[in-house]
Each structure stands twice: as structure tokens, then as C-alpha cells.
């Protein structure tokens, strides 16, 4: 048992640190924080990563990935989060890219993969539907063959950043015969196709990320189908089981916890800083301790994966504990903010409001409620563990 870093790992860490310090500059950070420049700033940042060869950490080398081992991935994630750098937008790089290089044909690989790597296309994910949430296979959006095309009708919901997207990958129903998992196909759809309508969903965090995407007689070439017709569920499942090193969000939670500490030093109650209040300390420590354990749970899973094991129900554990820790930290951030947790997002400046992080704390707390719902709700994850690990 050995978790110390080898010399080459330490050198890699220094290289990552140095690159982030230089490439993630203040000018870029400013554009990322401004909603009006957000999209082009994300693309700009991801292209800097691409030029460095680091944008596709989980991809095989032959498709443009890094070929990093689990230690290198861990180091990269840790340094990324510690530097306050957001993860890449996952829909192309972490999700559909994996499906395309694993199950797509040569033409699809040549057409889509380079554009994903260079962030030329912004992807979004069309899985959930109004009426089918955790029971994903009950989806009803239909695709009927008409000549060389499918005609797609229906609606997708909770689609993150569909307002920015150039493409959407969709699960659609191509057959109602047999089991509900058997008649599903996996389609890649150009968002500029006539008949697609994106409707924003107003959410409790006052930030526009979620949408409903409606499809009315949308023509999609059959050539845009991944693999075989009616086999889409297999590809979707492979995507879910695909190694997602960041599923527990440990590195980001460590940074958030550090921010709580920083803020809690500045909040004074009756002459005592919040960070010196033993009740507050104990709450903070309880989360800290869970996170210390979770970091090693993640490392144990990573080590098992790099030794040739496939991540199965372990990723359910990481998802449950990871999101619980995230929400606990968000709750603490709200409490540190005190009255200022109620600040709405508007045009008032930090100087006018007299407080810097109340709004952000509230937004992350409110949006953070989604974490135990999306990606298979935590209750569904518990069902998976009960069945796959406990044999119940």
C-alpha cells in the first residue's frame, strides 16, 4: 500500500500547476464570470487545454486523449480544482465523445471527434423527458423512418445549456415492441434543424441553465444514428458506466470547503470570528472528515479501475457521498453568509451591497439541490447498490 507520489508524478504536478498559473489568466476569468461572454470564454479556455493536449483526459490516445494513468488524472483534477478552474463542459468531451469513439462508424468519428476536441461544437444531452425522469427507459420521443431520415417528435427536458448548443445527442423511441429498453435508438441531432424549439426553464437559482427542447417533425439523417437501430440503450448504459473520475467532485469540494474557512474568518459575531466558534468548527470538521474519507474512497476506485476493473456500483457510492458532501458545504456557505444569503442576482455591485459572496452562495446552494436528483437520483443509486453489491 503506497500513496506517495513518485518523482515523475511530482514533476507532472509542477507542470500542471505552472500551466494553469499562466494559461488561466485574469482576463479569461473575467470573461467567464460575465454571462454575456461566458460561452466564448469557455470555448477559449477549452482550446487552450486542447492546444496543450490536455482537454480529453479520459480519452484513449489514438483518439486524441491524454493516456494518463489514474495518479496523473488525480493530480490533474486536484490541481484544476485548487486553482479554481471549472471542469470542461462534459456533454461533448466527457459524454458523447466516448460514445462516438466506442460505437460510432468511421465517418462519424472523423466528422465529430476533431470538432469536439477543438470545442467547435457545443453539445447538450437529450435524455430526460417531461414525464420520464429517473425511469429513463420510459421515454416517448419518437423517431420514425422516412426515406433516408428519421422524423423526430416529442420533447426533452432539463437540458443544460441547450441555449448554447450546436448539437444534441438524444435517446429516441424507434420501436414499441418488447421491453421498453429494447426500442430505443441513439441519435445525433443538429440544433439548427427546423422544428426544434428551445424553451428556457426558470429555476430557483435565478440562473438560466435548464431548458425544454421540443421536436416537431424534425428531420434527422439516418446517418446520424450511432450503431444499430433499437440498440441505443446499450450505448447509453455504456456511457453511464464510463469512467467519470470526477463523479464525486472531491477536488472541487476541497476548494469549496477552503472558501468556507476563508469566509468564516471574516464573519464576526459578537466579537468572535465564526471560524473560532466551536459549534461551527464541529460542523465544518464533520464535513471535512467525510471528504477526507471520500477522497480515499475515490482513490481506491481509481486504483481498482487502473488495475483493470470496471467501475460498477462503486460510482453510485461516489455519486451519493460526493453530492451529499457538496450539499453540506453549500449549506455551510449559506450560513456563513448570514442575511446576505438572501441576495438576489441583479445589477447591484459588490460595493453597493457590501457583501461579496452571498449571491454566489445562494445560487450554488439552490442549483446544488439538483445534484442529488440528476445523473440518476440518489435513491436510484441506492437501488443500484442494493441490487448489484448487496444482492438484494
Amino acid at each position: 500500500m503506497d500513496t506517495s507520489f513518485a518523482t515523475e508524478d511530482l514533476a507532472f504536478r509542477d507542470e500542471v500547476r505552472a500551466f494553469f498559473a499562466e494559461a488561466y489568466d485574469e482576463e479569461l476569468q473575467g470573461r467567464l464570470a460575465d454571462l454575456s461572454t461566458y460561452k466564448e470564454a469557455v470555448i477559449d479556455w477549452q482550446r487552450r487545454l486542447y492546444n496543450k493536449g490536455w482537454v480529453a483526459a479520459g480519452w484513449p490516445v489514438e483518439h486524441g486523449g491524454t493516456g494518463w494513468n489514474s495518479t496523473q488524472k488525480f493530480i490533474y483534477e486536484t490541481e484544476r480544482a485548487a486553482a479554481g478552474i471549472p471542469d470542461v463542459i462534459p456533454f461533448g468531451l466527457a459524454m458523447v465523445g466516448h460514445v462516438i469513439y466506442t460505437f460510432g462508424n468511421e465517418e462519424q468519428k472523423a466528422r465529430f471527434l476533431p470538432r469536439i476536441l477543438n470545442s467547435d461544437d457545443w453539445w447538450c444531452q437529450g435524455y430526460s423527458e417531461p414525464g420520464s425522469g429517473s425511469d429513463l427507459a420510459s421515454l416517448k420521443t419518437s423517431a420514425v423512418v422516412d426515406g433516408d431520415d428519421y422524423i423526430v417528435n416529442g420533447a426533452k427536458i432539463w437540458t443544460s445549456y441547450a441555449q448554447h448548443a450546436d448539437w444534441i445527442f438524444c435517446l429516441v423511441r424507434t420501436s414499441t415492441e418488447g421491453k421498453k429498453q429494447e426500442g430505443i435508438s441513439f441519435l445525433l441531432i443538429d440544433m439548427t434543424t427546423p422544428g426544434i424549439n428551445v424553451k428556457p426553464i426558470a429555476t430557483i437559482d435565478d440562473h438560466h441553465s435548464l431548458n425544454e427542447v421540443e421536436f416537431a417533425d424534425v428531420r434527422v439523417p439516418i446517418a446520424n444514428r450511432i450503431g444499430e437501430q433499437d440498440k441505443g440503450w446499450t450505448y447509453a448504459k455504456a456511457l453511464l458506466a464510463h469512467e467519470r473520475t470526477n463523479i464525486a467532485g472531491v477536488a472541487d469540494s476541497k476548494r469549496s470547503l477552503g472558501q468556507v474557512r476563508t469566509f468564516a474568518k471574516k464573519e464576526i459575531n459578537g466579537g468572535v470570528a465564526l471560524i473560532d466558534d466551536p459549534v461551527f468548527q464541529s460542523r465544518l470538521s464533520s464535513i471535512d472528515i467525510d471528504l477526507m474519507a471520500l477522497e480515499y474512497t475515490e482513490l481506491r476506485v481509481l486504483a481498482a479501475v487502473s488495475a483493470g476493473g470496471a467501475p460498477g456500483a462503486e460510482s453510485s457510492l461516489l455519486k451519493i457521498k460526493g453530492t451529499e458532501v457538496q450539499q453540506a458545504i453549500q449549506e455551510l456557505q449559506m450560513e456563513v453568509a448570514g442575511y446576505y444569503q438572501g441576495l438576489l442576482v441583479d445589477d447591484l455591485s459588490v460595493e453597493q451591497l457590501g457583501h461579496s459572496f452571498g449571491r454566489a452562495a445562494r445560487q450554488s446552494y439552490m442549483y446544488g439541490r439538483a445534484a442529488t436528483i440528476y445523473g440518476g437520483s440518489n435513491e436510484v443509486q441506492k437501488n443500484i447498490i442494493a441490487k448489484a453489491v448487496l444482492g438484494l
Partner: protein
Amino acid sequence: MNFDFSEEQVMLRDSVARFIKEDYAFETRCSAVASQEGMSRETWQTFADLGWLSVPFAEEHGGFGGGAVDTMLVMEEFGKGLLAEPYLATVLLFGGLIQKGGSQAQREAHIPKIIDGSRLGAFAYLERQSRFEMADVMTSAVKEGDHYRLNGEKVVVFNGGNADYLVVSARTSGEQSDTQGVSLFLVPADIAGVSLLSYSMMDGQQVANLTFEDVQVPAADLVGNLGEASALIESVVMEANLGLAAEAVGIMGELNAKTLEYTKTREQFGVAIGSFQALQHRMVETFMAYEQTKSLLYRAVCALSNGDEDAAPVIHALKVMIDRAGKLVFGEAIQMHGGMGLTDDLDIGHYAKRLMMINTTFGNGDYHLGKFNALRYARTD
């Protein structure tokens, strides 16, 4: 980065596991607990013959030369078997103090005898008033010529009634709770002036209260430097805490496995109770609590093995988690066994009681949370 064990470590673990499985049935354990000494000398000799009493000791004294990982593997298996024999008291505490703080002569005199099974030891540190503060020592040692004169009382001394030798903490200078001024002395249990009151604890282990009345200890039997024992005690207890945590992880795994098995066979309303989602989700919680505790145990073992400076907060964190996860696991185990969970015939309650004793030994979860806070939020600005 890897979490693999060496071939030697796997052999060690497997040999302990095989013994627990084949030769240490619950009934065997209960009859050892019910005996006068609360342990089996025969079992102890088997441990010696199989080399397990040598694990943490240096090779020059006939030891296995093992580290934190080896101790963890042995203790986890002992936890599964709900071991009654005084491995913690004799090997990890008594032996640990002599290995780390003793003179060459003291090591040569005691360690080979611990290893061959002929010497049982104990560490007498707790006093009526001291609760979890190990430096709260009122037992006094006063230098008189080439002797120290010991007076005072020690309570809940693990293995105190069986031990041939004791390491006793006593104050040689300073005030009651001062870290400085605590010293350790090696004392034969049959020395004049020591009186003994033996009794059993809820987990079956045999303990004793020891009274020292003008006990004459030769100056040569001082362990470590005069008045500077606190650091030595802290370091040995830190490793003992890892051993206890590993034992707790072994117990938690066993409780989860037994409970899971029970819910698959116990039928109510015509179906196995394990088919109820209300129970399934709770068993997922106990499974996750076990995995998280194991991860923190690994983290602590790696930190100690690597000599990381943050080993201390990790071990405090581990004690906090053992306390909380342990209570969750044994509480659910009793609940899901229904009325049977309350019976003495079933082993569930016995595992629970051992976990409870582990939680309180060297400080409970709240105590260690306080220590963790103190390290984490020490203000330098």
C-alpha cells in the same frame, strides 16, 4: 499509487483469517471470556507459534519488523473474530512502549518474551479523574537514592489482572495535568506494594484497578526520559488507535455481512425482509459507512507509514468516524435483527459492545473531534 498488499502481508492476513474461521468460533470466544482470566492461554500460545505476537517488533529482537499496514491487517481479522485475547494490551501498548521508548536492555529483557508468548503486559495510565486526558496523572514517583517510590491508583487497566509486567505512568514533576513531568516505569506485577482488583467489562475483556503503596522501583526501570513520557505515549497510542480502528472496521464488516444475510432469509408477510426498499436503503447506508471508514483507515495508515505531518489530524478524524459509523452500523444491525438482536445468544450484541468499548478507548468521537478542531483551526493570523 496503489492499495495492494505485499505477498508477505497477504500471507499474514490469510493465516489470521483462517485461524478465526476454523479455530475461533463464537462459542470458543465466549468460553474464553467466561473463564477466570477472560482469555485463553492456549490460544495465546498459538498466536506465538504462528508468529503473530512478533508483528510490530524489530527484527533484531526476533520480530517480524512489520509496520502500520501489517498491524492493520492482523487487527481487522481479530475484529471479525471478536477476539478476547489481550493483543492490544500486551503487543501494541506494553510492547509498543518498550520498543519505542525502552532502553536496549529493557527491549532485550521483554520483547523476546512477548514474542514467544511467555510474557503478558499492560499499560496502566488511566486514573479515576483523568477521563480521556492521558497527561492527567496524580500517581506520583519520588526519587529516593537509586529508587523511585510510587504511590497512587490506576483504573480500568486492560489485561491488568493477567499481566506479568506493567508500564505505569506517574508524575515526577509539574501539576496534575501538565504534559511535562510524566514518566513511565516498568514494574513487575508481583512487586511488593501493588494491590489488584480484577473485573470484566461489557465486551468481555478483563481489566483491573491497581493500587500502588510505597512501591520501590529501581531507577533503571524508568522507560524513556524522565518527565518526557507524554510524547512517547502519544506516539504509541496513535499506532494503537490505528489498530483499534482496524479492529472496528473488521467488526463493522462482519455486522453488515451478518445483517445482510439475515434479511435475505428472515421472512415476514410472506417475503424476505431484504426485499423491502425501506431496509435496502438503510443497508446501503451502512455499506457506505463501512467503505468510508475503511478509506479513512487506509488514509491514516498511509499517512503514518509515509511519516506525513498530517497523520495526527487524520487519526483524530478516523476516531470520529469510527464512533459515528460504528454506532450507525451496530444500531442498524440490532434493529434489523428485530427482537433477536437484543438476545445474548446472538453474536450481534457482543460485536456492538466491543465497538462501543473501542469508541471510548483513548477518547470518544467528541473528544477527538475537539482535537481535530484544535489542529485544523489553530489561528496563526
